[in-house]
């Protein structure tokens, strides 16, 4: 909490809360954005990573001689060459240690696992060399496990010989009160819900450029967390950390996949040091599909206790995450913990017991992806509510109304320990319902004459943890972030923050915050992000933390700076610091605008004409702050609970769909969003986050499914011909409305909004399609809802004698 500056800003706000135009778009939109792939260094060599074509195998021989003999190939390295590089740390004690090496040495556990690197004069030759290395590789295939069932079967082949099984983590609190609730309930049902494997797919793939100059290893990486990459490089290569500089230039999206520190972040700098010249690796699209983190593949075994009137008494849920090979840093286990923490959402019911399991398989390692376990949990909850409503003949909307938290019921601690600090759970649902009624009517009218079409509506009320702890995820880092604010002699403001930016608009946000805090215009503020030499140590951008962490750190640093600036101004004006106010870029005594001194006067005095400073004020006008949010905790308490997020946004998503019965085609007629992320700093940025998030959520609801062959654990495709990413042509009309429930304990009441958009679509679309097909009793338990899945559900119903066309 920073009450002084909060107060100051509340009384002088001119930019916070407005759609200040984005400052970061000119470069990318005019083709002048400098991405990692645009960095050209003298003598720079190109690296191609050689990846396993086997899902599970020992590598018995890698003959690199043919590749090395190829004209234009400079060097070929295998895991054995990197013996001086340490493994990625296994910081989390309660999950299975994987001891991941940057290049596999003797065993590969998924298709795409890196095991060699070819360095050549260009990418074409490097790929020719990689093909020769691949041809010279002898595998001894091992039996594969392609899914959870195979991995958990008795006697299943193990990925890690020193593990007891393929289970990396299994946390199962026992709650006797849940047992009692099941004994006392009128009814129970059990079912299994699924969330399918996807990947984040930033428009810009990953990339790393490295060079050593004058004793400094400089690394450009398309990462979301440059400081964490720096720490990992220093640790693993054994280089003093001050001699490593990591820069993330313009980054074209991350969506969580770039929060990880990947093998290439280590291998490319190692090559640059080894060869003494610049090296670069740019991930290509095909690589990206298997070499960057996957996510979302979870199974949920659910037991629900409910009464005749639809009241849910208790839920037991075992959430099992398919971790892929688990060879990823940071580990990919955290999303399934978030799933269990968020299943309840804004719904209040008496008892819940969640078991959290992570299992390794021979697939690309699972990790972070926008939503980070939240959509999976919301899907389970909403499908359960629809089921209970149907089983008890209760209205779906009425049942939700009964369960949702009402005004005045926050703060509310969920069953997993998450503390909903504020929110508009009932209000957002009601407001979304108001918008839905005419949308539903329109859809029904539109299709009234077509007997092949059914219309349905589906609901999702969700919560979104924002500014989370990184400790549960990494086992190491916490939850702070940082900013340094400086005013130069000319009065210009410079903000450098530990946050990064991948397109969200964090630079614009930082400028708005600093402008209002210091009484200047955003144009006077220069923002520096994503460079470890120029910005203080921060954790980067992920977990919907940009807005809150920037607010906290920029305002804290600005307050300290303003305090010093006031004292300098007071000295120049021969007044008392307590009487000095700043507005429109000038300091004066409150109530009398003249005489005044400008930020340039103060800056010049602080840095240049230091002879004018009073004796008790040091030269310079620069302050730093490290902000850690209130209420954010990092360790489980004795009951196994944790509030691992600083604040909780919430919202409602409602899908109105039409379904063509004969072909199974689904069309989202309208998608309604009511979104509450606390105080909004820039409405246009928030709206953009919601729109993009919803379309990514629709990707999971209807399109994307990363499939593997169940016999061989080979990916079933390698391009966008088959991995179906929705485009603007598939985006439905999205209606966005905002409610602002300020975070009571955070500066300015700011929460976060990066992920909420992804959360609702799977639940809302599955609910809407099930509703549309209620004549058949269809109750979808997984996504994507494809035409094939819809037809299969109709066929199954008709075979069981349900539906208008069924023969009884």
């Amino acid at each position: 909490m920073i009450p002084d500056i909060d107060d100051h800003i509340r009384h002088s706000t001119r930019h916070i809360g407005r759609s200040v135009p984005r400052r970061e778009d000119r470069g990318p939109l005019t083709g002048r954005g400098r991405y990692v792939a645009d960095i050209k260094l003298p003598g720079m060599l190109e690296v191609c990573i050689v990846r396993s074509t086997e899902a599970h195998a020992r590598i018995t021989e890698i003959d690199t001689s043919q590749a090395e003999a190829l004209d234009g190939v400079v060097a070929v390295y295998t895991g054995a060459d990197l013996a001086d590089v340490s493994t990625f740390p296994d910081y989390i004690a309660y999950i299975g240690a994987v001891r991941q090496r940057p290049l596999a040495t003797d065993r590969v556990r998924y298709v795409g696992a890196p095991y060699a690197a070819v360095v050549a004069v260009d990418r074409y030759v490097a790929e020719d060399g990689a093909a020769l290395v691949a041809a010279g590789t002898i595998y001894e295939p091992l039996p594969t496990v392609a899914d959870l069932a195979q991995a958990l079967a008795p006697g299943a082949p193990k990925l890690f010989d020193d593990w007891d099984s393929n289970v990396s983590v299994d946390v199962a609190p026992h709650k006797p009160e849940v047992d009692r609730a099941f004994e006392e309930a009128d009814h129970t049902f059990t079912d299994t819900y699924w969330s399918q494997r996807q990947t984040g797919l930033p428009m810009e793939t990953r990339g790393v450029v490295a060079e050593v100059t004058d004793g400094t290893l400089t690394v450009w990486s398309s990462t979301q967390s440059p400081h964490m990459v720096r720490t990992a490089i220093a640790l693993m290569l054994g280089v003093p950390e001050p001699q490593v500089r990591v820069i993330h230039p313009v980054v074209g999206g991350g969506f969580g996949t770039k929060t990880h520190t990947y093998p290439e972040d280590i291998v490319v700098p190692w090559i640059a040091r080894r060869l003494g010249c610049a090296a670069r690796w740019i991930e290509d699209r095909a690589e990206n599909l298997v070499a960057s983190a996957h996510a979302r593949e979870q199974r949920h075994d659910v037991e629900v206790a409910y009464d005749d009137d639809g009241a849910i008494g208790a839920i037991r849920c075992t959430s099992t995450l398919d971790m892929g090979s688990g060879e990823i840093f940071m580990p990919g286990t955290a999303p399934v913990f978030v799933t269990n923490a968020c299943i309840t959402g804004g719904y209040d019911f008496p008892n819940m017991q969640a078991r959290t399991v992570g299992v390794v398989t021979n697939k690309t390692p699972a990790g972070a992806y926008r939503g980070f376990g939240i959509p999976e949990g919301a899907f389970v909850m909403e499908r359960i509510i629809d089921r209970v409503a149907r089983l008890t003949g209760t209205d779906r909307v009425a049942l939700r109304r009964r369960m949702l938290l009402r005004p005045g019921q926050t703060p509310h601690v969920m069953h997993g320990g998450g503390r909903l600090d504020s929110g508009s759970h009932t209000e957002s649902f009601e407001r979304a319902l108001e918008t839905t009624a005419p949308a539903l009517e329109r859809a029904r009218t539109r299709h009234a004459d077509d007997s092949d079409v059914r219309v349905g509506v589906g609901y999702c009320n969700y919560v979104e943890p924002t500014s989370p702890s990184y400790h549960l995820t990494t086992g190491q880092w916490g939850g702070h972030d940082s900013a340094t604010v400086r005013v130069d002699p000319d009065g210009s403001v410079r903000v450098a923050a530990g946050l990064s930016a991948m397109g969200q608009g964090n630079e614009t946000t930082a400028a708005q915050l600093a402008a209002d805090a210091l009484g200047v215009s955003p144009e006077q503020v220069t923002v520096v992000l994503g460079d470890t030499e120029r910005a203080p140590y921060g954790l980067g951008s992920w977990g919907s933390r940009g807005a809150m962490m920037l607010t906290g750190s920029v305002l804290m640093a600005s307050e300290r700076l303003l305090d010093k600036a006031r004292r300098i101004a007071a000295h120049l004006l021969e007044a008392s610091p307590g009487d000095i106010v700043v507005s429109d870029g000038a300091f004066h005594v409150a109530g009398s605008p003249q005489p005044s001194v400008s930020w340039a006067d103060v800056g010049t005095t602080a840095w240049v004409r230091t002879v004018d400073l009073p004796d008790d004020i040091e030269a310079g006008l620069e302050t730093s702050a490290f902000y850690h949010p209130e209420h954010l905790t990092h360790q489980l308490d004795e009951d196994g609970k944790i509030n691992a997020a600083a604040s909780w946004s919430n919202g409602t998503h409602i899908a109105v769909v039409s379904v063509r019965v004969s072909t199974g085609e689904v069309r989202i007629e309208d998608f309604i969003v009511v979104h509450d992320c606390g105080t909004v700093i820039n409405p246009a940025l928030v709206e953009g986050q919601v729109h993009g998030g919803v379309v990514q959520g629709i990707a999971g609801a209807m399109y994307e499914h990363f499939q593997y062959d169940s016999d061989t654990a080979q990916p079933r495709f390698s391009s966008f011909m088959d991995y179906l990413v929705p485009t603007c042509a598939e985006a439905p009309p999205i209606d966005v409305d905002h409610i602002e429930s300020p975070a009571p304990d955070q500066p300015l009441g700011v929460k976060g909004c990066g992920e909420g958009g992804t959360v609702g679509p799977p639940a809302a679309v599955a609910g809407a399609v099930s509703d549309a097909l209620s004549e058949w009793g269809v109750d979808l338990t997984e996504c994507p809802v494809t035409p094939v899945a819809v037809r299969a559900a109709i066929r199954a119903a008709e075979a069981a004698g349900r539906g208008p066309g069924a023969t009884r």
Partner: protein
Amino acid sequence: MKPAPFEYCRPSSVSEAVDALAAAESGRVLAGGQSLIPAMNFRLTDVSVLVDIRDVAGLDRVTVEPGGVTVGAAATQSRVLADDGAAAVVPGLRVALRHVGHLQIRNRGTVCGSIAHADPAAELPALAVAVDATISVEGPDGGRNIAARDFLLGPFWTALDDAEVVTEVCFPAAPEGAVTVVDEISRRAGDFAVTGLVAIIEPVDAVVRSARLVGFGVGGAPMRLTEAEAALSGWAGHHTDSAVLEAAAADAADAFEDIHATAEYRREVLGALVVRAARKALNSGASP
């Protein structure tokens, strides 16, 4: 995603192109490159010489005559799509091309290239079979004309010999009064079809007099749906769908299964597309 080394040549005549192909260990013709170049970048196809025919004079010509439309090998899909005369004589060209890729793809992709590529889920090969198009090719031994149904042999497999190049495809005019429908189930706008149908239907007094039906994305090559054609003959909108659905499913008995759909799905939606096309034809009475 960089191709293996290859040679590139840009002949100025068909005979030079044929010579280049004949001399190549593994030559391929480049026209629009919308399928070939990605395949090369993925190193899925082995190409020693790429023969770019876009400089061959006259190959981009589109000739519209009352009896049909002749499309040269270098004519882009956008060019044909925009041709009102072609659309008047062979309505199927326009309705099929609307389903092909996106604007950027059609600006480079060629009509003949799509047919020569023979993707089993592509619209243009199915149209060619449906209208009895003729594919003209030139080779070391001279030229020959091949009926589309004999040209398209299987997935990415045609009757074209190694050193032959497609020079043009002639699409005969649609019968007077016929309605051409190209409809498909595709997962996203511009995707190849999961299952698709080209239907040329002649309605008379709200009854189907005759129908010519070709399914695509069902088998290895465009598939004439003879049973469905028979079932549709004499069909009217108030008749039940079931006979048509069953006939189409029988035509598609050997439908394939892939990542996008089961064989069962393909069989049943093919029938749904036939019914949809018939209703559309009966309702419109004129070309859409």
